[in-house]
């Protein structure tokens, strides 16, 4: 079984981002960039499926600027076998990403595609579901557990009230939620080994895909700030304030 796993390069989890001075977009020049945390979980799951003998090959794919090679090298160091970068300008919209991934799927013929459920920059939470739609495949979005069979995959999903388990025909698309696994720490020898693994760069044209944008960002701003309130001495004072001042209890 062959697995395609996707990784996005985003502003690091711990970095605070600001609008550009003219408010036209997000300022990400000189911001530390890392692999999207949900994609790390996706890569980890693919590697575990290979380690348990369920998968034979893992291909990591990224879409974006040439620096995305860095996050692909991280995926290779985690255990992916080879990597493909589809080089584009600034980050395309989820639908365009899904179309490029569809073309990659047709080229590589994986049995399973694993993506992070959302990227922590745009917080869209769309690409996996869109890819499944374009392929006509089943989707296991927000997965917290996978059980791989011969023809099918059982996916346990995080839903608002608890958990739901679906059975999808293979090939299928899965998007990783937080509790699917805990990604491994990458060891130095694996980082060195990853430098020798194959990383192919393609253009959208190589995949016969034209990227059309349907969204224009007009403005990016910080939300109104919430003012800090007061410290109270103890529970008795707190209860008095909640009852008498703001009347919420």
């Amino acid at each position: 079984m062959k697995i395609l796993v996707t990784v996005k390069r985003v502003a690091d989890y711990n970095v605070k981002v600001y609008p550009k001075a003219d408010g036209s977009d997000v300022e990400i020049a000189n911001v530390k960039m890392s692999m999207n945390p949900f994609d790390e979980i996706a890569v980890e799951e693919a590697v575990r499926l290979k380690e348990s003998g369920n998968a034979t090959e893992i291909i990591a794919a990224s879409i974006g600027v040439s620096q995305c090679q860095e996050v692909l090298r991280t995926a290779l160091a985690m255990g992916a076998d080879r990597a493909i970068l589809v080089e584009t300008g600034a980050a395309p919209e989820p639908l365009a990403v899904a179309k490029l991934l569809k073309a990659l799927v047709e080229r590589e013929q994986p049995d399973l595609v694993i993506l992070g459920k959302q990227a922590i920059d745009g917080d869209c939470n769309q690409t996996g579901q869109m890819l499944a739609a374009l392929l006509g495949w089943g989707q296991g979005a927000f997965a917290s557990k996978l059980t791989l069979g011969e023809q099918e995959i059982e996916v346990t999903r995080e839903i608002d009230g608890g958990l739901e388990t679906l059975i999808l025909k293979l090939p299928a698309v899965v998007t990783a939620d937080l509790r699917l696994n805990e990604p491994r720490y990458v060891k130095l020898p694996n980082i060195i080994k990853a430098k020798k693994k194959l990383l192919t760069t393609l253009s959208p044209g190589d995949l016969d895909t034209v990227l059309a944008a349907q969204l224009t960002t007009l403005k990016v701003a910080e939300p109104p700030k919430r003012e800090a309130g007061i410290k109270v001495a103890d529970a008795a004072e707190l209860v008095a304030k909640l009852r008498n001042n703001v009347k919420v209890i």
Partner: protein
Amino acid sequence: MKNILVIAEHDHATLKTATLNTVSAAQSISGEIHILVAGNNCAGAAAASTRIPGIAKVLQADAGHYAHHLAEDLAVLIAGLAKDYSHVLAPATTFGKNLMPRVAALLDVTQLSDIVGVESTDTFVRPIYAGSLLATVQCSAPIKVITVRSTAFAAAASEGGTAPVETVPAAAPLGVARFARQELTQSERPELTAARIVVSGGRGMGSGEGFKLLEDIADQLGAAVGASRAAVDAGFAPNDYQIGQTGKIIAPELYIAAGISGAIQHLAGMKDSKIIVAINKDEEAPIFQIADYGIVGDLFKVLPELFAELDKLPPA
């Protein structure tokens, strides 16, 4: 002018309240509003939809393969209907987030996630970077496919309307996914996203047993119990308690955060609460920067005291 289609989230018998918030977002666009209720024996939810004031028509699609709201099957139905609409809206719950990107891709249009504001028929405001920024985006797609953050729009009225119900034929099942089972958290407490008061714990709770203190206080207040991602990661609380960027987004009247430091990922899920109370032993914890009332102290001392004080309180 074309009309707006709202996709109802429901349990076949009744509507989920997030549907009412989504109707309210639709009302701030412009055009006639129709509601689609797709389910199995879902006449109850369809009837509830007809009673929402200002709805022009309720479409009901009833079929066995809609019993579990599989995105694969619902998306085909909705994409078929959507061609007659300018906007298709659903709540940004796990139901809507799973379904709407699939609908958009079938229509070959982009999708707007989690909108918190409507500027015009094609321009919307949505949070990015865990809500630390707000982006105003203009959408040129012929059909706008949107999920709506329910806390940003007041719930529409649920009684007083008399819309007609029109039956629409179900689409053929896609046959690529089937439902196996569901394990829902059983709780007597209100739903997190609908609760008036939420009592929430973080890594500072120290253990799952620590949450017992919060549960006692929640029961005194008729509140729901929530948790930070750190507490969920540590195994103190189930994931469906999680509040934040990757969990639930809530805006109750009162939010009590105990042992939560206030990471941006958590603030993303609760900073629109009306009154925020923080209890933390670290005076420098970022949560105090947004809290209306803060107590610096050991929560294992403060929470039992709070319980005792609430116990003494005469009914309001």
